[in-house]
């Protein structure tokens, strides 16, 4: 593996080497290497670019790594990944995309991920987005995530974008059957002239389904963030949406709450807050001997942790 490849992989997937378990590494729009295991099959699609990931029912304590890296300028990569998680399986999926763009053309990766999560299955999905490179070419990531959760399933999604992505439009849609639970944590930092849009729509269709969506974001410089989160309760269910943003400099943050109840037994809460770093917080850390800049860094990194 080239040095740049491994640096990007480390950044997005915490990979120091070829990972244990099943994996698929995609580079500059093509599959680089792939491994299936006895319980997890990864096979390339025949109709579209992308892969099907099939996890056998009852598979536990296994992981799948499917990182994507782009190291060339001018790449426009669209990929469809479908996950079929068998009943009762319990797996970790590590995705993510790292773009190194040193050229003047834009590099873009749009990952369309669809999850079919079986009854009582449990999925932890971690996705990190990262961009770097000193070229003028933009680094763009527009992920679409569709989650269909079977009865009693649990899906925990952690989506992180901390650095270097110029523009991102994220669309996430989930539908939950009875007893299913969805936990989404989104963490985002934008700086410079970056723009980030994130739409999440959760349909709580089944009795006793529940969803928790937490977003923590920091907008610096002239960046712009827009969030539209909508939780729709169609049966007896619970949902909690919490959006918390720190705004700095000349940034813009728009947090648009949407909660809909189509059942009298739905309990849905939305909380949203946008504010600058509190002066007392800075002062407190400065009384420990930190400079104002160091204090700010500590507050932001804690907030996004």
């Amino acid at each position, binding site marked *: 593996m080239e040095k740049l490849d491994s640096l990007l992989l480390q950044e997005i997937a915490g990979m120091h080497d070829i990972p244990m378990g099943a994996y698929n590494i995609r580079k500059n729009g093509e599959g680089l290497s792939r491994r299936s295991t006895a319980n997890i099959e990864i096979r390339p699609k025949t109709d579209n670019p992308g892969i099907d990931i099939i996890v056998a029912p009852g598979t536990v304590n296994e992981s799948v790594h499917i990182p994507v890296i782009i190291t060339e300028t001018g790449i426009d990569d669209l990929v469809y990944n479908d996950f079929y998680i068998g009943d009762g399986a319990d797996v970790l999926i590590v995705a993510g995309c790292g773009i190194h763009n040193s050229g003047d053309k834009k590099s873009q990766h749009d990952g369309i991920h669809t999850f079919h999560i079986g009854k009582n299955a449990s999925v932890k999905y971690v996705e990190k987005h990262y961009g770097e490179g000193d070229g003028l070419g933009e680094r763009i990531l527009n992920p679409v995530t569709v989650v269909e959760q079977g009865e009693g399933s649990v899906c925990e999604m952690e989506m992180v974008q901390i650095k270097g992505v110029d523009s991102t439009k994220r669309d996430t849609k989930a539908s939950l059957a009875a007893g299913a639970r969805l936990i989404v944590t989104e963490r985002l930092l934008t700086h410079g002239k970056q723009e980030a849009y994130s739409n999440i729509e959760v349909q709580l269709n089944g009795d006793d389904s529940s969803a928790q969506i937490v977003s*923590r974001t920091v907008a610096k410089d002239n960046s712009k963030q827009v969030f539209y989160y909508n939780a729709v309760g169609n049966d007896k269910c619970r949902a909690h949406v919490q959006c918390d943003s720190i705004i700095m400099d000349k940034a813009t943050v728009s947090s648009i709450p949407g909660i809909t109840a189509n059942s009298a037994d739905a309990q849905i809460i939305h909380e949203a807050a946008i504010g600058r770093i509190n002066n007392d*917080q800075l*002062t407190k850390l*400065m*009384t*420990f*001997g930190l400079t104002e800049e160091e204090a700010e860094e500590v507050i932001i990194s*804690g*907030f*996004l942790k």
Partner: protein
Amino acid sequence: MLELKNVSFAVDTDSGNLEIIDDVSFTVRDDSFTVITGPNGGGKSTIAKLIMGIEKPTSGKIIYNGEDITDLSITERAKKGIGYAFQQPPRFKGLTVRRLLSLAAGSTLPEDECCSYLTGVGLCSKDYLNREMDVSLSGGEAKRIEIATLMARNLGLAIFDEPEAGIDLWSFSMLVKSFKTMSSDKHNSVIVISHQERIMSLADEMIVIADGKLKNQGTKEEILPTLMGEFTQECDFRGRDNK
């Protein structure tokens, strides 16, 4: 040694200049435990903030160990060994108690050391080490953690702003026992702003501030008897929460 020389602090208001601190001078000796007391709104916390550098005096000088620190920033004063425990500690989303203690100490603290500071302020360390210093903590819990952050440092001058505020009396009497020992072991001199008789009874020196002026200074034997009559309306020595 800390010296305040003719320190005044005024703020602009709609109705003109408002004098918060008016020509206050006093000295805090090395190895001393000084309690500053006086009625609410009299300027005690402002004096603490002026010493820490959170506010800058309109006139006068602040001398610390022979050096004029009047124009130094909060950070510079902290590096010279001055520390300040807030009356109302700020909360931080995502910052754990352990991280906060380490930031205070200036290096990553081993678990057992963090635990000893938390135990010292009456908190069960296992329950708190990895908790976030956010709004989920009660006022009393946050206050104790704030005190612990000062215990995690070796300071030339430690200032505690009403450490009793928000802490229930039962816990407070336990806290008081270890307060002076801990403070004196870790810090060269200690200033405590307090209305609590239990805290005052620990004092070597006492300073009374009222209406922005220094009303009295002396040993606790000299000052305590004079207070009982003077401030009965404003101060409740039976231990009322004075927040």
